[in-house]
C-alpha cells in the first residue's frame, strides 16, 4: 500500500541510495532539527535489539518527533496470539511511520503490504537489515571519498552474515572488487557468487586471512564467527582465532584502509586495533544515526 516503505536494500535504486547518503551528510552537519515536529514514530521490536532501537529512537528524537512502541514482544499483544496483520493495522492508526524488527523473515515485507503508513525494516530474522547496509555504504563513502572501484575484503562468517550479503548487493552499483576470506564451513554462498558473475563483479576467495589480502584492501569488513554455526566443535576451535585481526597485521596496509564491523564484536578484532586510526567501527555505528534520520525523513516524504 505504501510506496515509501523500506524493507530491503534492493528496494532502492542507485540514485536513491546516493540521494539518501547525501541527505545523511546534511543531517551529520546538523543532526538537531525540527522536521519531524508533530510526527509520531512507532518502534515495534518483536525481538529485542537495544543498539538498533536506540539509534532509531535517537534519530526521531533529534528531529523533533515522538516515539511510541515496545522493545520486547513479551510485553505486546503478540504474546496473546495477535497476528502481525492486526498489530500493524492497529499501530498504523496511531503512528505516521512504523519502524519494526521481527524474528520472522519476511515480516517487514508483509507489514508493508497491510500498513497504510511507511514501514522501515530494522531487521527481519536473518533476512534483511537495510539501514545497516546504508550506514555501511555511508561509512565507506565518507572514509574513501567515493564508492566506485574499491577493493573490499570481507572476513569471517560469509555464509550466514546477512550484512555482508546486503552490502555485496548494494555495492554492485559501484564496480567493486571483492575478496572473500572465510573458513570452508562459512564460505560465501553460491547464489551471491553467481550474482557477482552476472554483474561482472570481480572476486577472489580464500581461507587464509594473510597480510597480502589485508595490504590490498581499501575496506576490511570483519564479521563474527559464531560457534553455533559449526556442526563440529573441533572445527570451530580450529578456526576461531584464525580470523582475528591484530594491530600488527595492519603495518603494511594501505593508508586509506578502514576497518568496518557491524558490531557487536567478540574476539575477531583484538582490542589493540581500537587505537589504530584505521579502526572505524565505532564511528560506523554513529553514522547509523544520520543515515536513519535520512531514511525516516525520506519515507515520510519530507526530503
Amino acid at each position, binding site marked *: 500500500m505504501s510506496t515509501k516503505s523500506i524493507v530491503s536494500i534492493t528496494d532502492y535504486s542507485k540514485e536513491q541510495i546516493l540521494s539518501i547518503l547525501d541527505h545523511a551528510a546534511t543531517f551529520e552537519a546538523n543532526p538537531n532539527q525540527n522536521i519531524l515536529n508533530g510526527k509520531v514514530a512507532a518502534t515495534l521490536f518483536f525481538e529485542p535489539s537495544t543498539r538498533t532501537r536506540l539509534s532509531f529512537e535517537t534519530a526521531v528524537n533529534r528531529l523533533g518527533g515522538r516515539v511510541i512502541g515496545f522493545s520486547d514482544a513479551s510485553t505486546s499483544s503478540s504474546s496473546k496470539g495477535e497476528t502481525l*496483520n492486526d498489530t500493524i493495522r492497529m499501530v498504523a492508526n496511531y503512528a505516521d511511520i512504523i519502524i519494526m524488527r521481527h524474528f*520472522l523473515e519476511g515480516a517487514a515485507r*508483509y507489514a508493508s503490504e497491510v500498513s497504510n503508513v511507511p514501514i522501515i525494516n530494522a531487521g527481519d530474522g*536473518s533476512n534483511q537489515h537495510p539501514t545497516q547496509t546504508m550506514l555501511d555504504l555511508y561509512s565507506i563513502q565518507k572514509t574513501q571519498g567515493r564508492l566506485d572501484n574499491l577493493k573490499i575484503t570481507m572476513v569471517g562468517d560469509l555464509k550466514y552474515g546477512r550484512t555482508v550479503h546486503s552490502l555485496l548487493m548494494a555495492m554492485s552499483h559501484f564496480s567493486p572488487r571483492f575478496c572473500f576470506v572465510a573458513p570452508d564451513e562459512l564460505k560465501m554462498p553460491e547464489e551471491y557468487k553467481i550474482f557477482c558473475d552476472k554483474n561482472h563483479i570481480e572476486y577472489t576467495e580464500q581461507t587464509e586471512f594473510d597480510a597480502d589480502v589485508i595490504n590490498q584492501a581499501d575496506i576490511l569488513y570483519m564479521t563474527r564467527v559464531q560457534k553455533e554455526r559449526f556442526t563440529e566443535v573441533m572445527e570451530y576451535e580450529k578456526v576461531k582465532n584464525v580470523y582475528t585481526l591484530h594491530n600488527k597485521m595492519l603495518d603494511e596496509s594501505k593508508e586509506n584502509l578502514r576497518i568496518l564491523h557491524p558490531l557487536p564484536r567478540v574476539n575477531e578484532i583484538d582490542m589493540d586495533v581500537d587505537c589504530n586510526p584505521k579502526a572505524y567501527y565505532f564511528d560506523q555505528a554513529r553514522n547509523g544515526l544520520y543515515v536513519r534520520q535520512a531514511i525516516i525523513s525520506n519515507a515520510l516524504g519530507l526530503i
Partner: protein
Amino acid sequence: MNKELQVKALENGTVIDHIPSDKLFKVVSLLKLEGLKDQITIGNNLSSKQMGTKGIIKVADRYYAEEEVNRIALIAPMAKINIIKNFEVIEKKVLSLPDSFIGLVKCPNPKCITNNEPMKTRFETVSKEPVILKCLYCEREVQEEALVLK
C-alpha cells in the same frame, strides 16, 4: 490407427495427458478436482511409449484458464493439455511455467512469516530450467526438489 483406447473418449472438456505416474495425484490436488461436480476420469499407470507408464485426467465440460493449467508445469512440465469439443481435439496446449505463484507453494523456511501468519504465499519464478522459485517474503530461493504445494 486401430489402437484400443485405454480410457473412454471425452465428448467435451479438458484432457491432461502424459502426467508422470508418480505425479498424477499431485496434479489432481493442484487442480482441486476433489470438490468438482463434473464428470472426471482419472487413469494411472497406463502404458506409454515415451514414458513407460503415465497418468491421464479427463475433466468433462470444463475448460481451464491459461494460468490455472500452467501451474501444472511446477510438478509435471511435460504434461500435455488437450481441449476437446465434440470428441475432437480442437487445441493442444504446451505448458509454460508462470512468472509468479500466489497461495500455491509452501515456503520451506520455517522462520518465514508465511508459515507463521494466516496469509497467502507469493513466489516468483527465478529460473524455469531448472525450476527455481523465490519467496517474496523471506527472499529464499527454492529448488524444484524442495517444492511443497499448499
